[in-house]
């Protein structure tokens, strides 16, 4: 059986699946139930000076019948008394010594950091996560993303924390920055043991077009929230991979953002995450999703003949290249399998209106469209719109040209194949 245990920045857990700091980790009772379901770790809902929340707090994108493909919230950090939180952390650790309990923190002054770190460690925290990411409410008070967006402040506070902490420290980064790398490096300079990312993305989830008010509506007003859920995964993957491939960045990563199942989690692991955190999908479907995540990851590892999660971490990072190094002579064309084609002609309209006008109606009554391979640029659009799995494939063409990237071409004068579809 493959080894599913995870070690992210020295924080160990029975599997790499952690609950992200959010409502699913509000209380000890919840976290113990989550551990019973199989979650390997949990990042406690951010602790600090307890706040008061608004109602309502959440909004969501429903797309073509699927509910909650994107999600946003305007809630703040914990609204429960600190004493209660610490008592519960202690209780959880007593009952679940093998599971990872990471305490997320957000306070202002150095004194406050000192005190809350001491209390967290006393309660039994296996690690700390510094919430430098919350993009709403807390940042207006100089915390959260207000810290994460300023590398110097990030570095300073991280170094204070490191001064007081005897357990590993993760810095949770905000995606609300132009380039994630300087922020990861700031955490590294401050002495962090690892980073976790992403927190939520500043967003307006929508407008109630009947009332003409932004959502989620608090009386007649709203405010920007933090975007998360399946829809943000590509942004999160990009930021995780951006840090993972940067030669100067050496810290372990806990990947977060839009993870809904084991496949998504594997993607984060392949791009350098040694643990993976989940919030929205659990809010939408409950702790029980982890059973399938564990099984799915395990059989994936078996199938790939990889014996541990650790061996998988970062396996796809080297494939994250620059555009200028991609092989311009690599050629693919679309092939339609006449056996499985159902004749919907979706590929044809997509290619005509959104690509390179090279799919045509069948000449007989088969309704299997015809691809003009000489014109096909291999963009994948037809394959993306095709409703039949495996019906359209992008096949490689041997065009006789040796590989040549743009950089090879401008640098060494390598020959590029003639352009296609540029009529």
């Amino acid at each position, binding site marked *: 059986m493959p080894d599913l245990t995870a070690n992210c920045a020295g924080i160990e857990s029975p599997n790499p699946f952690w609950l992200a700091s959010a409502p699913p980790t509000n209380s000890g009772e919840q976290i113990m139930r989550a551990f019973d379901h199989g979650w390997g770790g949990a990042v406690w809902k951010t602790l600090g000076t307890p706040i008061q929340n608004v109602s309502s707090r959440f909004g969501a994108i429903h797309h*073509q*019948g699927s509910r909650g493909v994107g999600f946003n919230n305007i809630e703040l950090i914990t609204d429960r008394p600190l004493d209660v939180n610490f008592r519960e952390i202690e209780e959880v650790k007593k009952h679940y010594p093998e599971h990872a309990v990471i305490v997320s923190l957000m306070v202002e002054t150095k004194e406050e950091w000192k005190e809350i770190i001491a209390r967290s460690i006393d309660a039994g925290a296996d690690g700390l996560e510094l919430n430098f990411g919350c993009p709403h409410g807390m940042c207006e008070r100089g915390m959260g993303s207000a810290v994460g967006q300023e590398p110097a402040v990030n570095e300073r506070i991280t170094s204070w924390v490191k001064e007081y902490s005897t357990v590993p420290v993760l810095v949770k980064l905000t995606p609300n920055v132009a380039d994630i790398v300087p922020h990861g490096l700031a955490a590294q300079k401050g002495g962090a043991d690892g980073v976790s990312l992403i927190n939520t993305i500043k967003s307006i989830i929508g407008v109630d077009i009947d009332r003409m008010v932004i959502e989620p509506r608090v009386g007649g007003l709203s405010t920007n929230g933090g975007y998360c859920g399946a829809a943000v995964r590509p942004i999160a993957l990009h930021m995780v991979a951006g840090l993972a491939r940067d030669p100067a960045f050496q810290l372990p990563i806990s990947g977060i953002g839009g993870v809904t199942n084991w496949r998504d989690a594997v993607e984060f692991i392949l791009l350098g995450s040694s643990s993976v955190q989940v919030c929205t999908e659990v809010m939408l479907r409950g702790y029980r999703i982890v059973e399938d995540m564990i099984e799915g990851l395990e059989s994936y590892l078996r199938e790939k003949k990889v014996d541990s999660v650790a061996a998988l971490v970062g396996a796809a990072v080297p494939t994250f290249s620059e555009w200028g190094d991609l092989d311009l002579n690599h050629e693919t064309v679309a092939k339609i399998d006449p056996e499985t084609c*159902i*004749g*919907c*002609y*979706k590929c*044809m*309209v997509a290619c005509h209106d959104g690509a390179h006008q090279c799919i045509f*109606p069948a000449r007989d009554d088969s*309704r299997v469209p015809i691809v003009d391979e000489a014109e096909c640029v291999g963009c994948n659009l037809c394959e993306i719109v095709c*409703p*039949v799995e495996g019906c359209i494939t992008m096949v490689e063409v041997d065009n006789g040209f040796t590989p040549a990237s743009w950089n090879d071409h401008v640098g060494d004068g390598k020959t590029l194949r003639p352009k296609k579809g540029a009529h």
Partner: protein
Amino acid sequence: MKELPRQRTETLFTDRKGAYTRQQALVEAHRCLFCEDAPCTRACPTHIDIAGFIRKIATGNLRGSAGTIFESNILGRSCARTCPVEVLCVGDCVYNELGVPPIQIGKLQRHATDAAIEAEWSYFEAGAPTGRSVGLVGGGPASLACAHELRRLGHAATIYERHERLGGLNTHGVAPYKLKADIAVEEVDWVLSIGEIDVRTGVEVGKDLGWEELESAHDAVFLGVGLGADHRLSTPGEDLEGIVGAVDWIERMKTGQVDVSEVRSAAVIGGGNTAIDGVRELLGLGIERVTLIYRGDDSGRSGYDHEWDRAKREGASALWRAVPVEYEGTGRVERIRCARLDGDKRPTGEEITVDADFVLLAVGQAKLGDAIAAALSGVESEGGRLVVDESGALGRPGWFAGGDASNGAKEVVNAVAEGKRAARAIHEHLGGA
């Protein structure tokens, strides 16, 4: 038009394909693949842009959705209920190829069109008056579609209908678990709301008004007369009480009351869709034993498989390869003596007797074309059907036809398509672009 009585036997039936809730409609609409040059649209005789109207349901644009439907098919609301979608649009949904349940196009069409008519959204305006007038004989789907299109083109239209109400078989014939008369009549009113369609009910052209008289009153004529009365077979005993023509009985059931409370076992003679409708209607009214008697075998019946499958599920039985040779009983029919037939529909010499105290004759309806052709030079008929060219024109200048009278009895949707097509041809005939 005369009001429908409230008390109608047909109201005992519930809808076979009920209305979608908004949520059900959204779920189904989102499944639609939005095909290009969609096979469903090709399969629809009125070529409704199906993917287009479904997408509008999905986005919450119900008004636009129904508009898309009506643009092609002004009787889209009754077609949503009456069309045998299994052999039309739904039958050609590409999902069938994928082994995935096809999109329920009829139910989605019903969702959009019901909403539109209930909200009284209006979509069409009459065209600028051309000063030309068209007489339409019959007030069924063919004439309604034709008249509406003529009004859009600015021509005056007068409908002559021998019944008290318009709608043709939508009002008088279609099985009530698909479409009830009140919905059909409501739709007629909605179609007429384009304005200035002159309606003359209770007028049978050829009897109450001469054909030539009609011709001289109008610049063009459209014949949407449908079919005539139920055939009878002149079988001995056919005049016993309890033996009635199916279309005639269905009409009474839909627009008034019929009493079958005393009937214990019924038989329906025939193998077409009217026969199967009769079987299902009798079963629906609580008659326990209903037997279809048909001279061919199961594979030879012309009624749709999906309808007969439902009838069987509802408890119908069938006697294939049999034909009544005598109805027996005193005063009222009690038994039917039938001859068994072989595969070529020839008597085998064997006989079988079926108990039945009620019999529906569903062996076809008279075709009206021959009589009209005899009365009007130039108009031709073939096997009782009026002969039209591909535009719907008859052999007499200015005369057009469509629907059951000329297509030999198809569906409501074909009548609508042909009525509209004829309107375009009439417009051209009258000098329009």
